[in-house]
């Protein structure tokens, strides 16, 4: 009986409390009738996955920075989709570059009901995770997973904004042949990325007439490569190709030198980083690597992006952050065009993307691959990555860059002409001064002569008059 009573009492108190609350809330809209009615705010959750721990943590942080920058800019701009104000929220996860961990955090993002996923960084983690995303119908755009398998699985949710390894391996193989070497050794780190790139490189190199004399393997956590390098040394390979990341590539190049191996070193995007040069030291110097896309400096929005990035994070762009930034932007763009933040609704819009991003004009083919991705070759020179050339890619992109170059050249030429004109003008002015001076003098003389003539004439007239 007592218990019943107290429950009743409680519910009465509660009812009072609620009604009191309600009364308190009520006057609010009345208090500010003139103010525009606040639009409903919708939070859009974007998952981002990259290794934040382990040997590739520096690249993971770089990726995350790219995504953070994009999300902050989108929020600052205040997008409106479906009549609601959109606030993007980034759920950043760490997969430690480990395929198992990749699947675990992917499940976590699926459970958190994210609207879309940006990532993962590594092909090895992206491929198993993509299965979970497709099952949940969550669109996924990776800024850096380059293994062809990722988009070959036939998943309609899988996209990437970077050229894949078939394109890159081919360009690298042909480039190696152009270097005047006959024999190559191929090393990979047995990750989906490293192995995929090395296999494509091997195919292209053999097609270009090179002989693969050694195939060795390491792993993505190793620091000692002397045993496999010693073996490579015995094959007298003239070029060592490494399919893997900078954390291994740098020390590998260094250990090659220590073992007295004179072969050239060549690698893909994973070693095309400032970190590689830091770790490889002198051994990096003069060697080449490739990167999908065009160098930032050559792209219309590149230099400005770089400035914004370094200003915000006080760090250099390591590798993929511009691509991750574009991936976020592409997803937001698709949501805008579909006028919906629901995965199922904006997913088809991603396929129809035509977005002028920082890294390229982004369009996808039927598989979800970037259309006509260009590959650029770089050389490590004086502690910096120096752009050499761009191979492959849509003529538009390359032409755009060329036009940009040409414009720059024209600008330079115009500057030179202006400079020359100014110099000429100065000279002309000086000469004109001289001319004017002499003209004045000549005029003076003429006036004098005229006056004399007048005088003479007057005299003559005078004389004539006097004669008369």
């Amino acid at each position, binding site marked *: 009986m007592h218990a019943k009573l107290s429950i009743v009492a409680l519910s009465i108190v509660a009812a009072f409390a609620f009604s009191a609350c309600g009364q308190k809330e009520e006057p609010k809209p009345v208090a500010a009738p003139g103010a525009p009615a606040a639009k409903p705010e919708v939070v859009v959750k974007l998952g981002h996955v990259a290794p*934040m*721990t*382990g*040997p590739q*943590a*520096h690249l*993971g*942080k770089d990726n995350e920075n790219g995504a953070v920058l994009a999300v902050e800019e989108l929020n600052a701009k205040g997008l409106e989709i479906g009549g609601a104000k959109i606030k993007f929220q980034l759920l950043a996860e760490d997969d430690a570059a480990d395929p198992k961990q990749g699947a675990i955090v992917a499940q976590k993002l699926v459970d958190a009901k994210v609207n879309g996923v940006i990532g993962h960084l590594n092909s090895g983690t992206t491929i198993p995770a993509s299965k979970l995303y497709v099952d949940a119908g969550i669109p996924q755009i990776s800024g850096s997973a380059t293994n062809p398998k990722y988009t070959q699985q036939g998943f309609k949710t899988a996209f990437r904004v970077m050229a894949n390894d078939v394109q890159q391996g081919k360009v690298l193989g042909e480039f190696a042949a152009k270097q005047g070497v006959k024999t190559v050794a191929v090393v990979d780190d*047995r990750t989906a990325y490293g192995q995929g790139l090395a296999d494509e490189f091997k195919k292209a190199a053999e097609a270009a007439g090179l002989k693969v004399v050694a*195939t*060795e*393997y*390491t*792993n993505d*956590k*190793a*620091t*000692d490569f*002397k*045993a*496999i390098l*010693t*073996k490579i*040394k*015995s094959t007298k390979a003239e070029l060592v190709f490494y399919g893997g990341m900078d*954390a291994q590539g*740098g*020390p590998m190049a*260094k250990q090659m030198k*220590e*073992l*007295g191996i004179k072969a050239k070193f060549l690698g893909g995007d994973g070693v095309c980083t400032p*970190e590689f040069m*830091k*770790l490889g*030291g002198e051994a990096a110097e003069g060697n080449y690597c490739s990167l999908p896309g065009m160098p930032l400096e050559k792209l219309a929005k590149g230099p400005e992006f770089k400035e914004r990035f370094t200003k915000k994070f006080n760090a250099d762009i390591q590798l993929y952050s511009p691509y991750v930034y574009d991936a976020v932007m592409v997803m937001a763009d698709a949501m805008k065009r579909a006028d919906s933040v629901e995965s199922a609704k904006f997913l088809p819009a991603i396929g129809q993307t035509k977005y002028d991003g920082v890294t390229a004009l982004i369009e996808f083919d039927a598989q979800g691959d970037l259309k006509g991705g260009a590959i650029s070759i770089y050389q490590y020179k004086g502690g910096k990555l120096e752009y050499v050339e761009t191979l492959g890619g849509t003529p538009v992109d390359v032409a755009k860059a060329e036009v940009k170059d040409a414009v720059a050249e024209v600008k330079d030429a115009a500057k030179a002409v202006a400079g020359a004109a100014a110099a000429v003008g100065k000279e002309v002015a000086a000469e004109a001064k001289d001319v004017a001076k002499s003209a004045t003098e000549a005029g003076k003389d003429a006036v004098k002569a005229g006056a004399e003539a007048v005088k003479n004439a007057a005299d003559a007239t005078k004389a004539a008059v006097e004669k008369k």
Partner: protein
Amino acid sequence: MDIFLQQIVNGLVQGSIYALVALGYTMVYGIMGLINFAHGEVVMIGTLVTITVAGSLINAGMPVALAGMAGLGASMLICMALGWGLERIAYRPLRNAPRLTPLITAIGMSIVLQNLAMMIWGRNYLTFPPLLPKVNFELAGAHFTAIQVFIVVVSGATMAGLLALIYRTKLGMAMRATAQNPAVASLMGVNINRVIAAAFVIGSALGALAGVMVGTYYEIAHYQMGFMLGLKAFTAAVLGGIGNLAGAMLGGVLLGIIEALGAGYIGDLTGGFLGSHYQDIFAFIVLIVVLMFKPSGLFGEKTGDRA
């Protein structure tokens, strides 16, 4: 043949580093029967401290050799303090706990130290300042550097010094007594706490030395470098007979050579069926084989309940 010789050189250097780290494991195990899995992290912290100290001293204009010595000194001191702290905070309260408890605590401490190092030094790879001149030698077709010679010599000398300490000093005698029977040793007037603390401190100092060597050899460091190194060194200690100092040394060198030869020849031996990516597997195959057929290791005494 020159390839074989080169692989032996590679393995010897790598093995000397394993041996030096293994000494830290084996000393602690020998005295108190604890596998200190955080020892690899002590090595890592030794390397990172040296980078910070030596790197900033070199930047301040100090001669490289002097800065290197200062870096080594600082990292040894910090690691000794760390070893002492580990024992005092994490292991001493558990001295009479079941055996599994301190083992799990050790793994926990290893994770704590890794994350602590990540917070202090960041996620990026750090480059180790070049402390030794880069001189290349060539002998019978095998290339080696001054650093490699230095590593082998120093680790041999350290080993000799440690043996002298254990068998010729009073502290060493106390350590051996504690290893045999802590209760009786304590009745004989040995301060057990001090002896165990000394084992941790000395082991950690050796770890710091190993860390500096790893740093000078590979010229890179990272907050996770200690994990794999620690596992390999532990394997080396088991291979030689854990608890036995000479065994740790021999086990380390053997393991290094097995790994180098394994990675170099497995492809040819198996006709390309197995590749060089099985390099790390050798260490653990060795561990399994030893545990199956001779659990006490090459030099290990049959200690019954200890091993």
